[in-house]
């Protein structure tokens, strides 16, 4: 029999057993109660306890079996495994029926199980982080076994070229050895991030100042969601916009001033990414500026400062940890942004300081080396995981610093809603 059919049969039988458990448990509890004995729980709760003790162990057994098969490669015929689980289910049913007695606390038993299930769900987020870390580290280690770590960090030539020949055991046929120097990739990433920050931080901060300090309530209620729309536009759309609309404009403007710009210049994705990031900076900065205590504003105005001086010299410095925290989050966002650079930035690793030239980024290389039709074990494919590892570490560090900054702000002004 095929595995899907087997699984369907298993689920059907388990469902049936669960139903039987429910009705048996309930009728037994109802009988006990009808005989005049007072019980600790309602008949329904005994019924649910019976269902849980039938299905729970059976599902656990089959899940453990499946994991053993996948992880340890043990050969357990699915039929035996599922049949075994059903036997466990029947045993659980018998056990539960024996427990349906007046002095048994069915409700507390259910409660314990539910608490356990909820805690299990909460563990999934931990497993996700671990999964990301392990998958990246594991493959990155394989990469660093093939390539030297030092060359990866300090090399200035990224030329995966013939690495697939090496993976196929034909290394001597390649014209040149593959080189994985990631410096040009990081240079490109930082250049584009820098351009994005040049756009996003001033506009985002000024917009936040306007909304927090100047805007009438009506403008505020309109402007906030409008800015949020900017954050809600999918990145693939921004990428298309950068490549089709913004890049040609930049090329012609640069041409007008006598510069030569590539159609894959770093400026277009940088500017568009900056616009995408404006709401990240503005909404967090807005919250932070709003939670600067009013007494500081009143005090500074009472000393004769103009409103502009108050904002510049009192409010913004007070809110600075929050603003820096928002900017760091924005930088981490920009570093990891993929679609805009995949569509609008270049593919050529290029170590240059000229934003009008084409350059590539870490995320572009990750995508490029994983979408090719190469064998998974080749150095080029694995290099994506090494780049991913660096990306993970950098963004993690930025996020942690950002969280620490905002916590400092919160403690200083005793704000609870940030």
């Amino acid at each position, binding site marked *: 029999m095929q595995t899907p059919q087997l699984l369907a049969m298993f689920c059907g039988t388990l469902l049936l057993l669960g139903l039987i458990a429910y009705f048996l448990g309930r009728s037994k509890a109802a009988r006990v109660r009808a005989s005049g004995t007072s019980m600790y729980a309602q008949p329904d709760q005994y019924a649910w306890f019976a269902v849980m003790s039938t299905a729970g162990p059976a599902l656990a057994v089959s899940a453990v079996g499946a994991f053993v098969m996948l992880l340890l490669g043990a050969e357990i015929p699915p039929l035996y495994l599922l049949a075994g689980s059903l036997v466990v289910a029947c045993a659980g049913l018998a056990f539960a029926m024996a427990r349906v007695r007046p002095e048994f606390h069915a409700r507390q038993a259910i409660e314990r199980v539910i608490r356990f299930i909820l805690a299990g769900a909460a563990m999934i987020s931990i497993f996700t*982080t671990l999964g990301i870390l392990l998958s990246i580290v594991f493959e990155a280690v394989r990469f660093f076994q093939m390539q030297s770590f030092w060359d990866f960090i300090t090399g200035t030539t990224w030329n995966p070229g013939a690495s697939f020949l090496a993976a196929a055991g034909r290394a001597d046929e390649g014209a040149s050895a593959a080189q994985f120097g990631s410096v040009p990739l990081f240079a490109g990433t930082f250049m584009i991030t820098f351009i994005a920050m040049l756009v996003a931080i001033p506009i985002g901060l000024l917009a936040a100042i306007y909304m927090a300090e100047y805007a009438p309530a009506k403008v505020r209620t309109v402007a906030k969601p409008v800015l949020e729309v900017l954050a809600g536009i999918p990145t693939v759309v921004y990428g298309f916009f950068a490549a089709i609309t913004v890049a040609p404009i930049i090329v012609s403007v640069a041409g007008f001033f006598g510069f030569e710009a590539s159609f894959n210049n770093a400026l277009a994705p940088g500017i568009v990414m900056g616009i995408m990031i404006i709401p990240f900076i503005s909404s967090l900065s807005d919250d932070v500026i709003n939670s600067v205590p009013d007494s500081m504003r009143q005090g500074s105005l009472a000393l004769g400062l103009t409103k502009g001086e108050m904002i510049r010299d009192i409010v913004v410095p007070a809110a600075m940890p929050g603003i820096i925290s928002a900017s760091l989050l924005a930088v981490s966002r920009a570093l990891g942004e993929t679609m805009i650079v995949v569509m609008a930035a270049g593919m050529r690793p290029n170590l240059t300081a000229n934003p009008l030239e084409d350059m590539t980024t870490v995320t572009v290389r990750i995508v490029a080396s994983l979408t090719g039709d190469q064998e998974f074990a080749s150095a080029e494919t694995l290099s994506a995981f090494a780049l991913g590892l660096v990306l993970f570490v950098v963004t993690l560090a930025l996020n942690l610093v950002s969280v620490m900054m905002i916590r400092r702000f919160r403690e200083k002004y005793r704000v609870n809603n940030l």
Partner: protein
Amino acid sequence: MKQSFDDISAQLRARHRKSARLKWASMGALGLAALFLVLFFADMLIKGTPAFQQAQIEVEVSYTEQASQLPLAAVNEDVRQLVSRGYLRLIPGRMRDNPDLLGATSMEWVLADGQVDQYLKGHHSKLNDRQKAVVDRLEQEGRAELRFNTRFFTSGDSKMPELAGIASAAMGTVLTLMVTLAVAFPIGVMTAVYLEEFAPDNRFTQLIEININNLAAIPSILFGLLGLAIFINFFGVPRSTPIVGGLTLALMTLPVIIISTRTALRSVPDSIRHAAFGVGCSRWQMVRDHVLPIAMPGIMTGSIIGLAQAMGETAPLIIIGMVAFIPDVSTSISDAATVLPAQIFTWAGEPDRAFIEKTSGGILVLLAVLISLNASAVVLRKRFERRW
């Protein structure tokens, strides 16, 4: 140093001018952001609306014996290059299904070639002068016109722009998001309930909380690496399918749902909890019967917003191979599929200029769906929000 009154008042005026400059600058920044938004939507509308129209021409189709072998022969030589190849290819099949057609000749409105479409819309086209003249003549005779493009919504991807549509990508999006929701919603709500209502305040709980906040800030492409290494290579989930895409997006959406559910749960006043305990509810009964129903609108709002985010996500799906060429609408979560943003990405890479229009059209559809999703979340919040 002594200052005269005039000096001081001049200084004050300068300070006020400076103060006003900051106001205008900050207003200008907001205006700039709004201006960009307007420009962006205008650009997309201008580029994308033509995609909802497609050129059709009226030609004489003769269902001869020869046409059943060589479909090009079904139409006259002068318009042969102007009719969509994809349409002509269907003729032999139609003749097989309907033998009465053999020998018939009729005037029919047929789908025009993509280049004719571009020419009629006034864009650059690859037609030569003779072909342009023929199209002009047809247009004057009322035999060539732009009609509403139903094919864009009913057919899958194609290498011929006039045949390409978003149906298969839309279906892929629906299937993928169903998987995402089925996984992320229960786990997210359960996690939030655990953290808010059950968990003791210890190191372990704090670890989970820090971890969730951190997960929300991890670049989405790393989730793609996770999907590739764990789901595909380790668990052997088939590549390019909605199930692996949905699982990957579910892990990404999880923090959004958890954080918004926790906010919703926290806004339920403690008096409700005390009252429930007071009448003898257990903790789970209190959560299930009182706290969760009250928090549900907030939870739904957060989930819709998370879903909208997942819907626009492309990068992790590229890594797990969901940028496949899918001409047929698939209906199973274990068949290869693509999603709307991935379809947009694929079309954006096509060299044919007619695909720019298709891409923008797809973007307009995606944006419309996203905006209505977010609007429904706002409406839901407004409608059911309770102030205590």
